[in-house]
């Protein structure tokens, strides 16, 4: 049954690798209306199909690749697609969103998504060519690194998503790669490895039909112009990439340094995007359909390769007390070809270095020591020697060797490159994010607390629950709709980027933003019927409406974000997660980052009750029946 809405391909592939059966999955239009696309539709399908309590690396886990209505329509930054499953890193819902052209090709082949169940007896890959879907033998490419796999697997012009040796060896933070972009977090590469699935290839010749193609084209033309004219997405990101704000994070004491023990790194300037651009950048790169183009191309051994992102410059840089950008460029390339998540690997290394320094686990991994990092990265991917333990992640290491107080993770997912004590709202995001300590799922509060132009007081805790919820809802809605999260940067009008030039005005803006949190609470409580408009600086809802023909406006769009976020929470609750798991290690909640300054810790105990209350969850962090009813999720609970 095809969808009545345009924009979608309207069909979903359902593949069982155990039996080799290839069929279709019927997704109802009601679910499309409620969850739009990407991670939220995946979570709904997982909720329907998967039994709670299963082992994420067993054949019982279900892997879902899902696109969104805007994927491949030409709207800006919409090459993105999502991979979801129960996460082997955390046991919570796992989802990972990335650029790369696989999603576009999958949709052109006539499929909105792919559900993969079971486990193949020997290595295979899935070949999708329009309606022809085949499970093909991959014994010859099993064990190959990601670069070679992309070369060897399937047609040259097809979209591909592949795993490397790390995924095959079930490293808990293995990635999936499409083109040069990686699904880094949640360990989706390991889930694919556990199914003996080396990759998926898609090629198609179908067109994506739109509901109102003419107005849609007008909207995206204006949208692209806005993104190009905006200081954040038109100038800063293309010029300096994601690491452009590294120095400013350090100045705000939010740059993880020496395994998150400090937020300030004296050599930060040597690792910034500005330095990268001046000394090493060959040219920009970007995802298909994206006008922002924040990716970097640099040279390594005479070859043009993908340059480092912020996260690795911080986590293998300042967090390891290493200021050598060239070394990091090399490690970045090694992680990408072996198939390891740069964020988790960096945080694991930092934690191992502190364990080593404290004499709790002697591994030879030391702060500031560069010569053995390449070897350790290889060992993790192949699970050799100390790599076997490192491949299990920070939580496992802290249980086995101690150091739980300073093990930077939440729910088992390693923290991303932001020190929460320098931005307490970001800390609240880490604790409450559905997939673990993820900066994006957590609401990316750092943009309002340190990296952005107009900032909230980073230590003021009262303003944070409402802003965090607003951000979490919006970002996840944008992601479900199919855009890159960087398209949210235009939420701040151009004028505020000129503010920091004046200290008094900047101070004033900070004060005003910080004390206006009750207004944000009011917005959150407002029924969506009171927001029947589209925001000019966030045209996402308008584009979805014109692409699909769905009756959606900004109010429904953000309500959809809230609904999905709560659905993921319900999924986690069904797996046994509750308020007790919304925590951060003691280092962040009890120790002052700057000794003597009592404000420099994350007052999680003060923020969480307000957060739950605003979300309509009970004191144990479980959504109440009233909230479930308000969000139109009742049918999930009843069945």
């Amino acid at each position, binding site marked *: 049954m095809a969808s009545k809405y345009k924009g979608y391909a309207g069909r979903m592939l359902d593949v069982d690798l155990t039996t080799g059966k290839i069929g279709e999955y019927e997704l109802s239009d009601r679910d499309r209306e409620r969850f739009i696309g990407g991670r939220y539709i995946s979570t709904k399908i997982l909720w329907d199909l998967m039994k709670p309590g299963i082992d994420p690396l067993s054949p019982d886990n279900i892997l879902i690749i899902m696109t969104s209505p805007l994927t491949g329509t*030409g*709207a*800006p930054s919409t090459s993105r697609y999502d991979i979801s499953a129960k996460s082997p890193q955390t046991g919570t819902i796992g989802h990972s969103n990335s650029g790369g*052209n696989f999603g*576009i090709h999958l949709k052109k082949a006539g499929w909105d998504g792919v559900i993969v169940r079971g486990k193949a007896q020997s290595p295979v890959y899935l070949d999708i060519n*329009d309606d022809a879907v085949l499970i093909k033998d991959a014994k010859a490419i099993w064990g190959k690194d990601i670069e070679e796999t992309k070369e060897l697997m399937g047609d040259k*012009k097809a979209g591909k998503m592949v795993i490397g040796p790390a995924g095959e060896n079930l490293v808990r933070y293995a990635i999936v790669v499409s083109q040069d972009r990686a699904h880094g977090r949640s360990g989706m590469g390991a889930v694919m490895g556990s199914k003996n699935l080396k990759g998926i290839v898609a090629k198609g*010749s179908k067109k994506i039909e739109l509901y109102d193609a003419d107005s849609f*084209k007008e909207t*995206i*033309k204006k949208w*692209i112009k806005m993104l*190009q004219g905006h200081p954040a997405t038109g100038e800063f990101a*293309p*010029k300096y990439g994601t690491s452009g704000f590294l120095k400013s994070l350090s100045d705000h004491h939010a740059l993880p340094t020496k395994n998150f023990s400090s937020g300030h790194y004296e050599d930060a300037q040597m690792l910034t995007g500005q330095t990268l*651009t001046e000394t090493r*950048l*060959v*040219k*920009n*790169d*970007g*995802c*298909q*359909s*994206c*006008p922002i*183009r924040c990716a970097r191309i640099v040279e390594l051994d005479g070859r043009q390769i993908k340059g480092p992102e912020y996260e690795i410059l911080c986590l293998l840089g300042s967090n390891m007390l290493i200021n050598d950008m060239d070394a990091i460029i090399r490690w970045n390339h090694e992680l990408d070809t072996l198939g390891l998540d740069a964020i988790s690997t960096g945080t694991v290394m930092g934690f191992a270095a502190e364990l080593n320094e404290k004499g709790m686990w002697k591994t030879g991994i030391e702060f500031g020591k560069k010569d053995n990092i390449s070897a350790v990265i290889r060992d993790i991917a192949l699970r050799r020697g100390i790599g076997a333990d490192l491949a299990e992640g920070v939580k496992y290491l802290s249980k086995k060797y101690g150091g739980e107080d300073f093990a930077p993770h939440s729910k088992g997912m390693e923290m991303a490159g932001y020190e929460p004590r320098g931005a307490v709202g970001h800390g609240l995001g880490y604790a409450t994010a559905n997939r673990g300590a993820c900066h994006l799922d957590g609401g990316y509060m750092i943009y309002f607390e340190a990296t952005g132009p107009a900032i909230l007081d980073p230590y003021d805790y009262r303003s944070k629950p409402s802003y965090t919820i607003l951000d979490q809802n919006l970002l996840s809605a944008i992601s479900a709709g199919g855009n890159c999260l960087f398209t949210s940067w235009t939420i701040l009008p151009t004028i505020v980027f000129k503010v920091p030039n004046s200290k008094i005005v900047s101070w004033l803006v900070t004060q005003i933003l910080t004390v206006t949190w009750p207004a944000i609470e009011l917005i959150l409580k407002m029924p969506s019927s009171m927001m029947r408009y589209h925001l000019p600086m966030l045209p996402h809802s308008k584009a979805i409406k014109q692409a699909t023909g769905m009756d959606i406006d900004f109010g429904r769009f953000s309500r959809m974000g809230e609904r999905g976020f709560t659905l993921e929470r319900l999924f986690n609750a069904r797996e046994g997660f509750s308020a007790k798991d919304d925590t951060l290690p003691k280092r962040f909640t009890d120790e002052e980052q700057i000794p003597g300054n009592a404000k420099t810790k994350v007052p999680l105990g003060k923020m969480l009750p307000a957060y739950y209350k605003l979300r309509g969850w009970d004191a144990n962090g479980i959504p109440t029946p009233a909230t479930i009813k308000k969000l139109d999720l009742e049918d999930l609970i009843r069945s």
Partner: protein
Amino acid sequence: MSYTITEKCNGCGACARNCPAVAISGEKKKPHTIDASLCIECGACGRICPQAAVLDAEGASCMMIKRSEWLKPDIVLESCVACGICIDACPVGCLVLSELPRKKGVDAFPYLKDAKACIGCGFCSRECPVEAVVMQIPIKTQKVAASGESA
């Protein structure tokens, strides 16, 4: 819908050699056929057929055009946002992203690397979200055509 070949076809095989989707088959000197499930409606067969034996998706007869006068993409650098959609849309892979960034700035840009391979389908221009790809007869040929008219 797909392009079709009428009985006027004499089996010269020019269309089959030109088809980027490998959708055309047939024996030499015998009428060829187009596999509707493979046809991408680029129109290359219609432009090359000397017998005017090809009908487009709407059923209209296609006219042969001299290969040198096929429309080719020209990139308006000022409007281009380097999103790469045109490169992906090209069925023959004749467009690529430049090795070096454009003069001012850090962004590479698409250009027609293999002009001979271009079949003039215009998919690049159609898919471009900012109308930065203009299809036109390459300048050299335009001049020749103009002088031919005046003579």
